């Protein structure tokens, strides 16, 4: 018997069609409704369920939420479901209900939570359960910058079925990104790294067996960490940026590296955790030699300006181009399909000067030469 959680954010994606770039917050929702927006998430969730029920071959019990947060859709396909809670906290469903549902599903020890929504929904679930339960997103929102979503709703259903029947066993820590919706509406895209969710991860079904079995992402991150740590210099301040690849360097050093923050490391010891720009500048002033270690965040390949705004133009100018160390798993570089790595520090002149070909550490004694563009 497999247990599956289903959370549908019924209002996700409504802002998109009416040009509102997101539906976070009740006022935006009212605006969207006034502009004649219609729900998008239910249809997307239906497509995913359609695929899921077509493929699934194991007994399953669902946990879902009342009405348009899941039950209305699910009851068409199965009677085997329970409600996480009988009614919403308010008159309409809200993000509080999403958080509550995710927590309850975790307590019920579900094998997977399938959710329909966008970055905001992913963020709510991430805040509720973190990495405790595998999760898979049905892309339904206006903003999909997070890596926690399948490519299409149908793919989400198929992957969920394969995961539940044990055909897919790999799990991957994937970025939950969120952009500032106010800024987005004003025409600016500033995604930040909010946290990580654990998603089922299927390598291409048929691999080139010639290439042999690839090591796990975790093993590659450890190899990268080994390479970085082997070459660390005494008396040099290392500023470790956010992300799991950089965190592996902290793990190798035996320090508690913050996952989402910028930390300072000197001679193998943590000397500053989750630093803000001011603190970073102060540390930089105190040390003659400074290097900064960054990793591309999310699918677009940003190494500066997404998820690490603490590494501000002032910090980067002080550190200098040649002291930027880029680390990345080879898969992440491959997923760019040839597009360059990007910088968007907020200072166009600085960005321009940072362009060029950089060595990217991709493993133990392995580098790739890769372009950075502004």
């Amino acid at each position: 018997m497999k247990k599956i959680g289903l959370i549908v954010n019924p209002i996700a994606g409504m802002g998109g069609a009416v040009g509102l770039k997101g539906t976070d917050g009740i006022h935006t929702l009212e605006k969207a409704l006034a502009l004649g927006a219609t729900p998008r998430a239910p249809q997307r969730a239906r497509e995913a369920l359609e695929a899921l029920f077509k493929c699934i071959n194991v007994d399953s019990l669902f946990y879902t939420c009342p009405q348009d947060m899941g039950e209305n859709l699910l009851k068409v396909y199965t009677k085997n479901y329970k409600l996480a809670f009988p009614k919403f906290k308010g008159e309409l469903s809200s993000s509080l209900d999403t958080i509550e549902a995710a927590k309850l599903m975790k307590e019920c020890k579900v094998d997977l939570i399938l959710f329909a929504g966008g970055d905001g929904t992913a963020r709510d679930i991430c805040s509720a359960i973190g990495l405790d339960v595998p999760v898979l997103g049905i892309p339904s929102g206006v903003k999909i910058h997070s890596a926690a979503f399948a490519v299409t709703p149908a793919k989400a259903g198929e992957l969920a079925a394969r995961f539940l029947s044990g055909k897919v066993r790999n799990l991957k820590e994937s970025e939950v990104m969120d952009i500032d919706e106010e800024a987005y509406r004003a025409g600016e895209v500033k995604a930040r790294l909010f946290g990580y969710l654990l998603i089922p991860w299927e390598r291409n079904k048929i691999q080139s067996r010639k290439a042999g079995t690839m090591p796990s992402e975790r093993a590659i991150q450890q190899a990268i960490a080994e390479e970085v740590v082997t070459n660390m210099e005494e008396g040099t301040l290392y500023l470790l940026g956010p992300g799991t690849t950089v965190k592996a360097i902290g793990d190798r050093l035996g320090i508690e590296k913050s996952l989402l923050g910028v930390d300072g490391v000197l001679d193998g010891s943590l000397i500053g955790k989750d630093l803000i720009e001011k603190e970073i500048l102060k540390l930089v002033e105190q040390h003659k030699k400074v290097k900064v270690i960054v990793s591309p965040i999310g699918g677009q390949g940003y190494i500066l300006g997404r998820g690490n705004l603490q590494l501000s133009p002032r910090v980067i100018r002080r550190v200098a181009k040649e002291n930027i160390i880029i680390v990345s798993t080879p898969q992440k570089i491959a997923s760019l399909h040839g597009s360059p790595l990007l910088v968007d520090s907020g200072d166009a002149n600085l960005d321009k000067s940072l362009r060029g070909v950089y060595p990217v550490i991709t493993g133990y004694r392995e580098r790739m030469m890769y372009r950075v563009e502004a």
Partner: protein
Amino acid sequence: MGMNMETKLRDFHQARWDEPIIYELSREGERGILIPEVDEVMRYPDEGLEEIPQELRREAPPNLPEMGQMRVLRHYLRLSQENLGADLNIDIGQGTCTMKYSPKINDQLAANPKVSELHPFQSQETVQGLLKMMYETEQYLKGISGMDRFSLHPGGGSHAIFTIASIVRAWVDSRGESDKRDEIITTIFSHPSNAAASKLKGFKVITIYPGPDGRPDIEALKAAVSERTAALFITNPEDIGIYNSRIKEFTDIVHSVGGLCSYDQANLNGIMGLTRAREAGFDLCFYNLHKTFSSPHGCGGPGGGVVGVTEELAQFLPVPLVSFDETTGKYFLDYDVPNTIGKVKDFYGVVPVILRAYAWIRSLGEEGLKEAAKVALLNNNYIFKKILDIKGASAPYAEGELRMEQVRYSWEKLYKDTGVTTTDIQNRMFDFGVHYWTSHEPWIVPEPFTIEPTESYSKDELDEFIAILKHVANEAYTNPEIVKTAPHKSVIHHIDHDYLDDPEKWAITWRAYKKKYTGYFEPRKNRDE
């Protein structure tokens, strides 16, 4: 009725035998041949045995399958019917592998008892013909490449790359630069063995990505080279089929910092006789005889990865070489290689493969070799044009330019339009009796496939393959389910590759299979229920 000549689609169905593993067919005591009894003395020869340490002596005979001759024959014929080999299908879907026709007469030559019955320890006096054949093959390869000396020993492409990496290692060490020159540069579209062999020989690996035109980024190479550069390991044209006409600039840049340049010419088919490693500035190169020079590829049989080097590097080649003594007029196995890396293969190397290459080169001659390459280019650009006309297909990089002997295509648009992946297309192609391969990882080209028609196939056959591809792509738009649930007419529906990714579960030998059988693999009787 035969196939519909209008649509060029066959009503195909592959044989499905559900054939067990040979060990499952084994019955204790069953024999193929009964050998006459031998006397006691022969049965227990004591002499020499005492030199074998006790712990290395077998206590029980090896566990080999026991079967009668007819059953063995049926077993392997059934397995062969569950395959789509180069002799059975229009095998142009396995791009990069050069699945061309290997004339059967060459197989007959290689199987001739005059060759097959030779013993590797036979006196060299008695194998002068074989040695002469090997010597002359080397002379032809020197002409084709412009290199000064060849080793015919490596048994395949990766083995050749390993030999080359060993030579680079010996060269670096001989110059006292072991601690200094510790980096080898390669490209993402070169075969991954270039990086792997370099690592194995203790080098750091730097990989270069292509620029927007699909050629390796020359600016990245400039940023990568230094006094630490031991060598560049590069392919041209790379697997995507685009010729890098600036290749001499690449070798010049590496030479300017004192490094060596190795040319991965495993697949020579597009430039054979047209351009040479020497003129492109390379110090080492290798050819897969089983791609370009008339030996079946891959699991079709043993291969040959011949390594050529310049005069300066000949001192490091593996032993023995085959040389000719002018005073005695004899050919001989030459162990006089001052700084040899040692042996890379037993005895003479893979003689049947070398013999096929010799026969093939002799039968074609210089003009024939050039013609073969040109026809391969022509065939490829014909099929290139036809595939670009198929809805949903594209060829990334270098838009509007012709290609060399193969093309890496993308179903990115088809996937976005229909949700059908290149793997789905692959599975559906089997239903029409042709093999199709996605591409080497990593998939930098999204939803990739690589087609290499070589010079061997007729226009009719190329058209048939295209008709199938076009039909399947059309199905993706009109009836995606039939593609996504394919194959429907093949030997087996789906092989679960997860078995191969988990050390707890994979089984490379029958013994390992039995050990893990009750754990992960379900016993056969349960599976059938």
